[in-house]
């Protein structure tokens, strides 16, 4: 089953998202800030990354840019998790190299569709 890296600093969101995705059979790894996320991605080489944008240490945009710039992680699809209706956030996310975005709060069915699409299922 596909391995998903969730980079999220909010415990509850992380817990919820990881448990619900795990219930659907994904293997979940997680990181709580951008820098840790980059390290974790390099270490775990997940099939997909769910990246919150507002993160401590290194924000989501920066982390995504770093990942996309590094050869080995450049191909990993990144879904940005952005705040509601902030068009500029979304544009910034895409500009930083995210493959797609999903607006918080997360409604699982919609997110699952995007995950499936990026994983090529």
């Amino acid at each position, binding site marked *: 089953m596909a391995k998903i890296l969730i980079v999220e600093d909010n415990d509850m969101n992380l817990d919820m*998202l990881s448990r619900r995705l795990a219930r659907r059979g994904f293997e979940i790894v997680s990181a709580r800030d951008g820098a840790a996320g980059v390290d974790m991605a390099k270490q775990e080489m997940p099939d997909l990354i769910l990246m919150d944008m507002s993160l401590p240490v290194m924000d989501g945009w920066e982390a995504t840019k770093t990942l996309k710039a590094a050869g080995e992680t450049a191909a990993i699809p990144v879904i940005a998790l952005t705040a509601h209706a902030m068009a500029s956030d979304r*544009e910034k996310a895409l500009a930083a190299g995210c493959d797609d975005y999903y607006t918080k*709060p*997360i409604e699982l069915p919609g997110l699952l569709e995007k995950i499936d699409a990026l994983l090529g299922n």
Partner: protein
Amino acid sequence: MSRGGLRDWFAGNTIPFRVGALSAVLLCAVAIGTAFMVYDLSRNQSRVEDANTEFHRLRTAAEAEQNFSEMRYWLTDLSVSLLTLSERRAAEAQEKLEANLEQLAAFAPATVEDIRTGTAAYVDKAFKAADAYTDGNRVLGNTFLAQARTDSDAVGTALQDLVARLADEADRTNRLASEEAQAAVTRAVTASIVSIIVGALLTLWVLRRILVPLGSVNRAISALNRGVDPEELPPEGPDEFGRMAQTVRALKESQDKRQQLERETREKHDTLLTAIETIPDGFALFGPDEKLVMFNRKFRDIFAPIGETLQVGMSCEEFLRAQTKTEDGIFDGMPAEDWIRERLERHRQAHGENETVMINGGWVRLAKRKTSDGGVVAVYSDINDMIEKQQELDQARRDAEAATSAKSQFLASMSHELRTPLNAIIGYSEMLTEEAEDLGFDSAIADLEKILSSGRHLLSLINDVLDLSKIEAGKMELYVESFALAPLIDDVSATVAPLIEKNANRLVVTADLGDAEIETDKTKLRQNLFNLLSNAAKFTRQGTIELAVSRTDGGFAFSVRDEGIGMTEEQKSRLFQAFMQADSSTTRNYGGTGLGLAITQEFIRMMGGRIEVETAPGKGSTFSFTIPARLQPEPGETRSGDVAEAEAGDKPLVLVIDDEARARETLAGMLRDEGFRPALASSADEGLKMARAEPPMAVVLDVLMPERDGWSVLREMKADPVLSTTPVILVTQVTDREMGLAFGAVDHLTKPVAQDQLIAVLNDVVGSQARDVMIVDDDVASRQLFRRILSREGWRVTEAVDGAQAMKHLATHRPSLMLLDLMMPNLDGFDVLGELQNHEELRSMPVIVVTSKDLSREELAWLKKNAATVVRKGASGRAELISAIRRHIAAKPAEES
């Protein structure tokens, strides 16, 4: 000359006629008098001749008497002496007597005949007596002698009678002649006196007839000469005096007219002077020779320290020099001489631009403009109050902006703070629901779903409030992307399905879209459709809700029809207001915040469409809107993909304020023809409102308008911190040029306005403000290149070597365009743009970013939001730069603040 002509000539020329007639009468009198006297003279002469004749006759008669006496003597002697000598002497005397008688016979023949006969008888008797004596017959002799004596006595008596008669006649004739001469003299004297008197009277009369009117004409003329109104004017007529009177009257009329004109001119001049005196601004007019022609008290007040030395006729240079004497020797950071030179240069190139200068410790806005005769009008407005007001306004705006920003910040963080726990509530409810289903805790599922739906409702409320606050703050952004419409419709239908079913409604979707794509904000379109459908579902029970989508020309039409409760007209009118539902009870019955439609309407407007509603109570409602298939980004709006090609700026806005519709339309036509964007206002108030809503590049202002005239508009604009520098061109029927200039108008056109004149003035106004560019680049070669390009196009160029210097320049001088390099020491281009955004008055200044930096998408997007155009340095960029600048030259003078 015809008879009529002659009559006319006489009627028209009475002076020669009168003088001629007078001369004729006098000549006649002289001629008649002379003739009369000649006649008298000749009569006198004949009398004298008669008298002479008679004296001659008397002498002849006297001679005859003497000769007769002599003859008697000698005949007597003969009778005594008988001498032949006596006889001979007697014969001689008889001969003489006979000669005398011969002469006298002509006029007294009878007497002469008697005398002859008597003489002959006497002589005969005397000789008979002598013969008798000779014969010695004494008796006979004595007889004869006695007879002879008788005869001789008769003759002697006859002769004596004749002499006496003749003497009488001569005497009478002589007396008559002298009497007649006396009478002639008397007559001549009388006639002369009468002639003189009549002539004098006639002359007097004629002269009076000439001199009296002449005198009155003369008096009238001399009165006119003195500038006094003549007491009386001679009567007019066809003659010389009539004509003179006409001339005098014409003279008087023209003089009256001239005086009236002079009076009017003087009054006008006084009015102008009063107006100029009463304007709150300092006013000075310099002639083409740079000499001060006139100025008002306020001008003197502004230059109070040199007020006493100000006088008409002083030159601009003297005026400037006087100013330098009173201050500390440094003016605007330069030595006095340089300052004078600089100010003089500016004076000579006066162009109507406004300049803010510090004079004697006060801020003054100085506008100098050339007059048509080459002079210069200078208006000095005391703007200390305005600057204070501006500062207050700035402060108020900063406060308001800070408040708005705090509010936005608050809302953003608030919504984030609210949503984070809500996320958890919704997420965990979903999870629990799933787990309850898995574990078969069916009794808990219904409750969990209630938590879930309440959480979702709360989330939608929060989202609505956030959306609305963003819309209100003008911070709502569009994210335009291209996507297929059919899947979106399916998606919305699926999402809304639970709501539809809740009230046992049925959804009918009519959409034949195939794989039609639309380029707009997907999320907002989705939200709109969802809003309208959920509203329809909310207000309809057991009915049909229809969603119809169709293509239109250039866009898509959407409509949502329901069979719900519908609305009255009054309810409909409040429909799109935030927090308003049809009425307050609706909220209780149907729930919702009342924000949905307000948000929907705003979103549709942002997407280039308009929402409409058809409804009646109990008849359901149909909401419909059409949006373009391809949303044109608004200026400053971000769009992914495009590089460097910003839209050309708007055409310069010119506001026309005129109460006459035709004049407005004519002016609008002229403006459109020449690439300006006209805005039309029909009254002073409307014009001011429009000018404040969108400050125009220039205002074309009619002076004569009902209610409020152009002067009051001009005054109000000049007192408004935002509009005070907006150039105003007056359009009038009357020539109030000086007054207009004094009140701060930049120029003046007379109705009807000629297109070329209007455009020349506008280009002048635009040109003076627009063609001012600042080049900010640390690279000398680039700066020189830009300077060359721009100077050729007639721009005034200032340079700055980095952002810090640019900001320093901008503090004192605002150009109408900036060319900005990005990579610079001290303060780079990004920082400059950021700084510009922080200054209200600089925000509208167009900036062309010229860079060789390889820009990231992010940077590009940011730049496009904050700069007019981004141009890359390099070979291809140069052409691009020129075309970008050209666009600004051609189309966009800076929107003056």
